[in-house]
């Protein structure tokens, strides 16, 4: 068995905080405009796709936790080395770090794009990316407990955005959802597959697991978090389908933000401008967790200090945001990343669980045989 990660209680977190970790890591930039991507495939049954994707996250998480329980207190990086050996294991670890980097980068770039498209078209990408990176570096240097704190506050402070969905419901027509299941099952599944980019984030569990104090209580908060995420996505999707008409939803790039665009209060003419700015708080946990996950992998590969790592990582992300400028490039990255993420997040953990289980049985037999001999 692999050497478990040794941690002092001071570095650990309570299991219930995983609710905020998982939920905070899931909701990010995807929710701003996932509707039309799902709608392209599943049409007005898109909400079923969202539901299916939500169920899939539960199944995958179930497998993840099973795998992690086999190893007691270890993370994905340790498990990979244990199962596949030093070379392949380290290669997979490096790949996973790269995955975290691309995820981090795509969240960052997408958010900057939203700010530029909605509010400040003339602000330089470098400026927004540098500002955001500095905040992230600041949170990261505080350690895991600070990052978890960020995700906690990110969720609590943005709770008020959710009831805003009631405003567009004024123009909703429930008939838009009918007839249910008109589209064939394949296109609905395809829609669920397109949910990947939006719904991922819960794979952070693979890395954060050793840091949980009471590991036997992990299940409940994690599944609750997934449930909450599915519920939010489902409500946003339902409201969007009923609020927009077919053609309009397909043409709206950030449907959630446009949903907010006619809400106005006597003291605030355009609500979505506030929402766009406020979104920074929502994506912060996303960014912090991917950065942290990459860091956990990097220290196993090379001997590197946290500060050096975070500056290097940020530097590459910064260069990346400057190089990738146009909407087409960003869309390509989102699509490609979504496809890769599907295998990394939804397929791989199930495979890994099967392999880990096999290996466990195999070694258990071997030990037994040895004892008998």
């Amino acid at each position, binding site marked *: 068995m692999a050497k478990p990660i040794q941690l002092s209680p001071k570095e650990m977190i309570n299991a219930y905080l995983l609710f905020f970790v998982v939920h905070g890591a899931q909701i990010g930039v995807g929710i701003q405009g996932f509707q039309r991507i799902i709608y392209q495939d599943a049409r007005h049954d898109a909400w079923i796709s969202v539901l299916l994707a939500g169920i899939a996250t539960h199944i995958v998480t179930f497998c993840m936790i099973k795998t992690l329980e086999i190893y007691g207190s270890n993370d994905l990086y340790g498990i990979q080395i244990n199962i596949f050996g030093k070379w392949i294991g380290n290669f997979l670890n490096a790949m996973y770090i790269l995955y975290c980097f691309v995820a981090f980068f795509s969240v960052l770039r997408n958010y900057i794009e939203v700010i530029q*498209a*909605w*509010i*400040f078209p*003339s*602000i330089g990408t470098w*400026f927004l990316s*540098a*500002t955001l990176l*500095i905040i992230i570096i*600041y949170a990261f240097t505080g350690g895991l407990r600070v990052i978890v704190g960020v995700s906690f506050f990110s969720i609590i402070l943005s709770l008020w955005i959710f009831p805003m969905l009631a405003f567009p419901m004024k*123009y909703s*027509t429930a*008939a*838009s*959802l*009918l*007839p249910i299941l*008109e589209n064939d099952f394949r296109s609905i599944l395809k829609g669920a597959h397109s949910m990947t980019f939006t719904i991922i984030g819960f794979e952070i569990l693979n890395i954060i697991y050793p840091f949980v104090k009471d590991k036997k209580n992990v299940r409940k908060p994690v599944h609750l978090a997934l449930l909450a995420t599915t519920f939010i996505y489902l409500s946003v999707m339902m409201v969007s389908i009923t*609020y*927009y*008409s*077919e*053609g*309009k939803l*397909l*043409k*709206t790039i950030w449907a959630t933000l*446009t949903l907010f*665009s*006619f809400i*106005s209060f006597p003291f605030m*003419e*355009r609500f979505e401008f506030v929402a766009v700015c406020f979104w920074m708080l929502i994506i912060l946990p996303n960014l912090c967790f991917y950065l942290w996950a990459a860091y956990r992998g990097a220290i196993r590969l090379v001997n590197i200090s946290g500060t050096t790592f975070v500056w290097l990582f940020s530097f590459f992300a910064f260069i990346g945001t400057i190089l990738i400028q146009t909407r087409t490039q960003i869309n390509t990255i989102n699509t490609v990343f979504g496809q890769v993420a599907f295998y990394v997040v939804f397929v791989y953990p199930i495979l890994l669980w099967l392999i880990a289980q096999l290996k466990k049985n195999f070694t258990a037999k071997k030990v037994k045989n040895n004892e008998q001999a």
Partner: protein
Amino acid sequence: MNKLRGKSIVLLSFVFLYGCAQTNILDKVGLTTLVGYDIGAEEKIATTAVIREVNPEFQSNVEVLTTENDTSKGNRMDANRKLSKKIMVGQMRVILFGEDVAKDNLRYYIDTNLENASVSNGIYMAVVEGKAAPLLKYEYQNIEDIGQHIFRLIEQNVKQEYMISATLHQIAHDYYSIGKDLAMPIIKRDDELVELSGVALFKGGKMVSTLPAKDSFYVKIVRDTFKVGLYETVLEKEDIPSKFLQKPANKITVAFDAIHSNREMELVDIATPEFDLNIKIKSRVLEVFPDINQGDPKSVAGLEKAIEKNLTKEISRVIAHSQEVESDIFGFGEKYRSTVRHSKLTKDKWHEMYKNMKVNVNVDFVILRDGVFE
């Protein structure tokens, strides 16, 4: 401690850098409150913009500018060349279309306004009888800011439910919907006033017909649920048994206040298609001329029947008119799409079917009460 100070200096510098974003100070911008589109004499689009220039010392100044260019943004640049202040569109409240533009195609105008993040989805849209420019350029005696005036005029009538609501969101929704066509109010200049004169019916992005303002009540009642709205109708002599009348008369005028209305559409025959349209109206009768004894339950029931008959006739007429011009502003197609599985409906296909559609209108009219004096 030193390390912390270093960090805070870096952070602070960003705070100051933030000020480098482009600023829009109220004194230095011209707020476009209304834009009217016409087809230009030489170029594609003639834009008339009502621009309010806020001046802290003097009274605010309202400019009405007409420019011609191939795009609406190009028009904005042209207008910028004529003004001392930068033009912003964030406060735009109304978009008007000249009749020629509306009859051509609105697609471009809907899209360009949806694309622009600084244009709110809640702005009103309307068609102008004739051209938009003369309506806006006319020097009204009592109207200071024509942009603000038209906005208030439309807003007030929509809120009171006298006129159908046509915000950018609703227009775009209907335009991009398979089974529904869009409708807009029509405005025109009436001497020194601006008046809402009717409803424009569209087929796709083209205006195909109009209905008089009086009919907007029927359009509204079939389009969606109705909360408050005053309406007046004329009952024919044969609609109402003369025994209820206290004085014989040829025509009876009734004004009522629809407290609440509810409509239900049901698709009864897919092939034709045939719809049942059930409308329930609860109302308060405000005026009847000549008098009817409203204390007598029988005559109230008789009046209800007569109004039902009258409304059924009028609503059928309005729907028949819309069928003639193939403009489904009521959303029957939407109902068809959501009821029939695998209908593969397209807008063109629906327009074909809409012509031959049959509608059975049933109105259930209930008089809740009249005033405080019988």
